[in-house]
């Protein structure tokens, strides 16, 4: 990069009024930038306060929260074990990754290594369109198109099930995997490719032994990011997977995820400050922690294992 002269203080001597105006503009812009930090603090503060109140309640214990397999905060007989919600989230995310990662990676290989530039741009545009479909629409599609289709093939498939939600979510995360991985593969310098060809490699050998290993950090980051999106996805599961917290790994079952529970609890009429309403915050805090860890992990992977070609 060229050095930035703009970052240095202007050597001009300004009239006091002009200097005041410059200072005001600077302060205003700084306030804008500070807002994003404030947002994060807001999220954390909102979650921590109510979550602490939740665990302070005598009816709730840490041990029960993380080990019990019953989650019934909205019923009279309350039980607070988050495992069913975690297993539901895990189940849907696993299906989504099983679909989205191979398909997304293969698309990335095609787009980066085979497609001519014109087609690459057009196909990338269309994939962005897929990523831009509102998730409530994908939920509609999963519930009213994919589920009836699957029910013809798979006996015992519930109307609300983890399978079709996961399948559709796989296509939702496909563009994420594909676009970040494509960028990573494109960043592999052509000198490496030429060297491989010079050694007599075929294109397939080049892809598997040079391009993919060199782009690995970007690929891993894309997968982790896709995972975090799948964990945080709400509307597809709310509509297509149901709202029954069940500790199971059977994809045909109706389940609940952390996100679908949040929607269920927030759209019901739980009075603010009740234990049921606070359980929502505890679930949201868990969700936030998981996605934050995943995002940090993806950034770490990129920073740590990025191959540098300068």
């Amino acid at each position: 990069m060229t050095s930035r002269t703009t970052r240095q203080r202007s050597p001009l001597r300004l009239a006091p009024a002009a200097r005041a105006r410059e200072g005001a503009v600077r302060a205003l812009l700084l306030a804008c930038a500070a807002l994003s930090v404030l947002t994060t603090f807001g999220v954390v503060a909102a979650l921590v306060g109510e979550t602490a109140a939740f665990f302070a309640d005598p009816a709730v214990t840490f041990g029960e929260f993380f080990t019990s397999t019953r989650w019934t905060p909205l019923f009279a007989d309350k039980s607070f074990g988050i495992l069913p919600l975690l297993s539901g989230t895990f189940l849907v995310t696993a299906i989504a990754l099983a679909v989205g990662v191979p398909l997304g990676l293969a698309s990335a290989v095609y787009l980066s290594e085979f497609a001519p530039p014109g087609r690459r741009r057009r196909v990338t545009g269309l994939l962005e369109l897929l990523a831009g479909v509102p998730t409530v629409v994908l939920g509609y599609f999963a519930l009213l198109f994919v589920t009836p289709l699957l029910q013809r093939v798979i006996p015992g498939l519930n109307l609300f099930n983890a399978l079709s939600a996961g399948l559709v979510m796989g296509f939702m995360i496909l563009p994420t995997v594909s676009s970040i991985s494509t960028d990573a593969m494109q960043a592999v310098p052509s000198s490496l490719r030429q060297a491989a060809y010079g050694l007599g490699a075929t294109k397939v050998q080049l892809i598997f032994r040079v391009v993919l290993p060199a782009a690995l950090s970007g690929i891993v980051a894309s997968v982790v990011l896709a995972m975090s999106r799948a964990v945080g996805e709400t509307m597809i599961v709310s509509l297509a997977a149901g709202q029954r917290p069940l500790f199971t790994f059977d994809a045909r079952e109706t389940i609940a995820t952390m996100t679908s529970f949040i929607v269920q609890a927030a759209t019901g009429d739980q009075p603010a400050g009740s234990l049921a309403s606070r359980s929502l915050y505890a679930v949201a805090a868990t969700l936030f922690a998981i996605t934050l860890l995943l995002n940090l992990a993806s950034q770490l992977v990129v920073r740590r294992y990025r191959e540098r070609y300068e």
Partner: protein
Amino acid sequence: MSRAGAGDRAPLPAPADRPERPDMLDLGGVEARRRRRRVRAFEAAVFVPVLLALALLATLFFDVITDSFSWQVIAPHNSGRSFAFAEGFAFHRTWENVVRLELLAQGRTPEEADALLADPEARRLFAARNRVELMPWVDGLPLRWLVTSSRDDHVADLPLFEGVGRRRELLASAEPGQVVLLNAWLDWSFFLKNASRSPAMAGLLPALVGSLMLIALVILLAVPLGVGTAVYLEEYAGDTPFSRLVELNLSNLAGVPSVVYGILGLSVFVRLLGLGPVILAGALTLTLLVVPVVVVAAREAIRSVPDSLRQAAYGLGATRSQVVFRVVLPGAVSGITTGVILAVARALGETAPLLVIGAAAFVPRPPAGPLSPFTAIPIQVYNWVSENDVEFTHVASAAIVVLLLVLGVLYSLAFYLRRRYESRW
């Protein structure tokens, strides 16, 4: 490369866009052919997922559009007569004209019909219970006006393609007095109808107005915030701990699930500030959600403005804020616009945060202002799908078609703008 007949023309250069394809060289041997076959098979294999993704997208559009049509058999509460398009159409007086025809068909005299249309209260009552609708197909005839009533009995509802096959059967099976029609749920009246407990009467108006107000507020709030942050990071802040903190924050905020933003909105705007579940609270929540999108796009656009322009401006004696507002931002405006369009598209489709802050389940009329309870198009889709009623499914798919059309326009605009501005400097 050079073929017979090419004459003295220089050999064609290899296509510039794929410089490295040595596997295409004609090596001639069996081994070379096998290697080429393997590469081609692999290319086909990695192309399949691309096709799959695009096929899914196409299927989705196709499914939603066909779902917004259905064949229905209704036992009408009104006269049950339909009127040819030409018979009913009368420019801006079409509604009155069709109502008149219907009243006459019910056996009223022309004087009674005129009296009803002249009396505002009678008109209002009629409009509340009845709809004038243009149906593509009624009782075997194309493009008919039909006055439907909220008290009509819906006898049967068939999907588009099933109904095409069984059209004759449907017509034959309709009992006397029943009407067979192809209901296009997405018609002009869909935009004008208020919410209703009955699917045939339910319209998009409150959600449409709610979404428009939300978007307007989000643009008002998110553009200054996002662009301000980007300008600060790119033009003012050096590599200070604060700017690093802001950057770290932005990259992490982008990964926070939208439903968690809903919780933030619920705690801060709805409860702490006491706004309640109103449009303003929804817009503030969505603003926090999309600011990172605007920041990323604006930073990229600002960075693409060449430094020489800034230096020229400084050379002319401009202050820093003058450089920002007269050189950098005008140069970055198309890139920033792209980012704003993408942010709007995101805000338009967001459902979960609005559900969490408490967008109302049933909003009978369009919201009056930023402090009214509200609904939005995606919320309405969620509610209609949750009704678990086949007719409400059609209403939901009609709303989805509207939503996808608007998003399609926005994405094409962004795509076009981005390509134009890529070649700018």
